């Protein structure tokens, strides 16, 4: 299921996006690089894709905030779960 909502300002979009007990991933579409980083800072999600979606890489940690689960798979943070250090 996909819910489609409108927004007038980036701040409003952030509030709407974060209004959930989950936080697995988020996507941002904008031409402005600084806005990507600003939004990525505000969104409470484990993975944020900018101008793309559903990209995965074994070197990139994947996993969610809040009720989207525990821990990360991939990357340094995925490997950490296998270490006693």
């Amino acid at each position, binding site marked *: 299921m996909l819910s489609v909502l409108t927004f007038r300002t980036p701040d409003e979009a952030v509030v709407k996006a974060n209004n959930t*007990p989950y936080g697995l991933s988020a996507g941002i579409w904008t031409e402005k*690089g600084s806005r*990507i*980083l600003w939004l*990525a800072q505000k969104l*409470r*999600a*484990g*993975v*944020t*894709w*900018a*101008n*793309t979606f559903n*990209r995965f*890489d074994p*070197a*990139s*940690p*994947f*996993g969610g*905030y*809040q*009720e*989207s*689960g*525990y821990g*990360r798979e991939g*990357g*340094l*943070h995925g490997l950490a779960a296998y270490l006693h250090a």
Partner: protein
Amino acid sequence: MPDAAAGTRLDVRKTYKLFIGGAFPRSESGRSYPVHGKGGALLAYAAQASRKDARDAVVAARKAFAGWSGATAYNRGQVLYRVAEMLEGRSAQFAAEVAAAEGGKGAEARAAVAAAVDRWVWYAGWSDKIGQVAGAANPVAGPYFNFSVPEPTGVVAIVAPPGSSLLGLISVVAPVIVTGNTAVVIASESRPLPAISLAEVLVTADLPAGVVNVLTGRPAELAPVLAGHMDVNAIDLSGADVGARTELEQLAASNVKRVLHADADWAAQPDTRRLTAFLEIKTVWHPAGT
């Protein structure tokens, strides 16, 4: 004129209250309970927090989260270092309170207070360093700058160690808030008084209201409320009673709380584990191209 030296002054006895949202309210239930020293003497009455007080504390912690987590790491470090300065200035008072609560020689209490201040400073220093240690730039196959940064988990409930009224408390509170989380801490049931004095220090050090909230009372009554609360993101069970751990972990699973298990040893020489236990890793795929 009454003469203080002749012992004719009335005692100015302290009423210990809760610490919620930067204020010191009594329990909304009106309850209090006697706190006895190691020798059995009555030290004071402490507020006995109710389930409603616990929920109010979560609301205060949630309200404080945006501001505290949004402050710069440098700023959080400065505020926490000031807490250490205030603690140091009041070390004689804390040593007296710890000695009264835990017994033993005065030198032992002074050593415990010194260790507590040192531990607070140690954790305060991590504020602007944990990002470098826990973050990463990830070498993905594609035209992206891919990086991971640690962020605070949110509102963290803490069951403080029952035996150590100040060092144990500081060992569990400092690592939670230094990274930007806000905390609701249940103080030691039998030794709650130094926790309220710590709260007085936090206020004078300009820690924003609600970043730390202290409940005194019965952990058996309060911990299940926090463990099952849907607006609490994580729980530190370091001080939880052995018999209560399974129930608390089951309650914590209701909204996938991050759980620091009860066997995590707060007394050991600290490392980054208590910091990373309450951090989320956020990964960003930023396009790279012309």
